[in-house]
């Protein structure tokens, strides 16, 4: 829509085909798109209208609010790092190799996208919890995950991982395997190909995937509440703080919600490039 309005700029920058596509959008599609945009924007506007601006500063700088925001930023960063570490190899395997049951594997990888987060929380609890599959092992090693900040990061990584895998895999598929094949024929070992060819190729997808994963982690609520609990400075992230404040102080909840929206929008706008999604 912004493209359609800035016609001159598009004409100078875009190719002829691109312009034809933009001009060719039927009006009713634009109308429905506008309703769609309103559908998303209007509730945010509605919420903003409720903000108690006179006390906004005090509400968002209370010790519990600051603790929650810092914890959210810290855990979302940690979980994004974990997603990158695990997600890139997963995407490479899914995009570049063929094996039996690949479709099922992909379906499972994407499962956290469609699972209600609380189900994710229960699944994590029955795996990493005290009485979970791996709980005993961790207990022997002296690691306690339940009710710790680690649990928060794990819950966030669980729900955010598919975003990164999807994004990187799509970029890999779009870029094709030609460069990698050429590098291999020129004698590059698989390791060299990965570091020098594959990885640089997927940087756009990597960035947009990481941004989406970060934003998803920032908004994580259900799995955290179920798996990690809620304690100020340890496990009570911004969404949990909003949920709690709403009980007694709706003004604080709305103010914090706005902070969360602003942080998410800033992160997305600053780093997200739709081109990377292909």
């Amino acid at each position, binding site marked *: 829509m912004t493209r359609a309005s800035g016609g001159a700029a598009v004409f100078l920058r875009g190719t002829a085909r691109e312009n034809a596509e933009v001009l060719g959008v039927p009006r*009713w599609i634009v109308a429905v798109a506008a309703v769609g945009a309103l*559908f998303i924007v209007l509730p945010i506007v509605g919420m903003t209208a409720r903000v108690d601006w006179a006390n906004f500063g005090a509400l968002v700088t209370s010790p519990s609010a600051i603790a929650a925001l810092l914890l959210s930023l810290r855990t979302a960063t940690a979980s994004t790092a974990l997603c990158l570490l695990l997600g890139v190899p997963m995407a490479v395997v899914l995009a570049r190799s063929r094996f039996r049951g690949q479709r099922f594997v992909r379906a499972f990888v994407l499962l956290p996208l469609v699972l209600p987060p609380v189900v994710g929380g229960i699944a994590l609890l029955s795996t990493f919890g005290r009485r979970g599959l791996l709980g005993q092992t961790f207990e022997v090693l002296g690691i306690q995950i339940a009710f710790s900040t680690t649990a928060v990061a794990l819950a966030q990584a669980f729900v955010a991982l598919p975003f990164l895998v999807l994004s990187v895999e799509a970029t890999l598929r779009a870029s094709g395997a030609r460069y990698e094949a050429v590098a291999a024929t020129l004698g590059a070992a698989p390791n060299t190909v990965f570091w020098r060819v594959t990885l640089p190729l997927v940087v756009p997808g990597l960035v947009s995937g990481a941004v989406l994963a970060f934003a998803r982690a920032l908004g994580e609520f259900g799995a955290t509440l179920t798996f990690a*609990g*809620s304690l100020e400075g340890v496990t009570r992230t911004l969404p949990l703080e909003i949920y709690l404040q709403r009980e007694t102080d709706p003004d604080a*909840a*709305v103010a914090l919600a706005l902070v969360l929206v602003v942080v998410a929008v800033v992160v997305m706008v600053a780093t997200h490039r739709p081109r990377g999604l292909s």
Partner: protein
Amino acid sequence: MSTRRHPARRHPARRYVLASLAVLAVAALTTACAGPAGAGASASASAAASAASTGAASRAPETLTVFAAASLKKTFTELATEFEAANPGVTVALNFAGSADLVTQITEGAPADVFASADTKNMAKLTDAGLVADAPTVFATNTLEIAVPPGNPAGVTSFADLANPATKVVICAAQVPCGTATTTIEKATGVTLTPVSEENAVTDVLGKVSSGEADAGLVYVTDIAGAGTSVLGIPFPESGSAVNSYPIGVVATSPHRDLGTLFADFVTGPTGQKVLAATGFGTP
């Protein structure tokens, strides 16, 4: 041939698009109005709302919409069935959520006829807003009890045991009714708890205990009674210092105020009291 069929086809399609647009627009507006209410809660509220509107369409079979605190789920579901049996033609639509959530929904215009709160504080919010028809009546009380996983792995026997730093204790956050009660007991006994988690709802505390993640939790007597064998209850004498009162009131804006009063009387009457006592609630 195909050019002839097109216009005929187009009209229903366009109507369909317009209809879905209207639905979307309404959805967008109602979402904006619902504001900070939880997604799950507002979904059940809209379910209740649609139930209420279908009832309002035809006058004779009346639908009474009751908003009740989450801890009343079992008792009020049973009472609703009995009330329907006693009053033919009446349907009771129930919406359960945290008391604070329900107050938010009602002040935002959710079509509630009767509100039953888990504490007097939340009922007071509604009374102060002028949304309760008559003075609310307290119909039940509830006290806290220690819940431990079966087998009591941490060997908890008293409230003072909960202060042991090696014991993983989960309580309600001070912002919710069960947390307020917990704080009251802490003050009365001088025992300061160092919980590993402060949950939003008493059901979350119960879940952490029954799953064995926590060694102990503070929940209501009725929660333990309703949890069966998944948790073990340890009563403690200090719980008497924090008794939660459950008030019920008819919403002032309700079009079914007479029926609402009838339901409130039913809850405070012999049948209601019998059902409530059976699940562990105390008498007011």
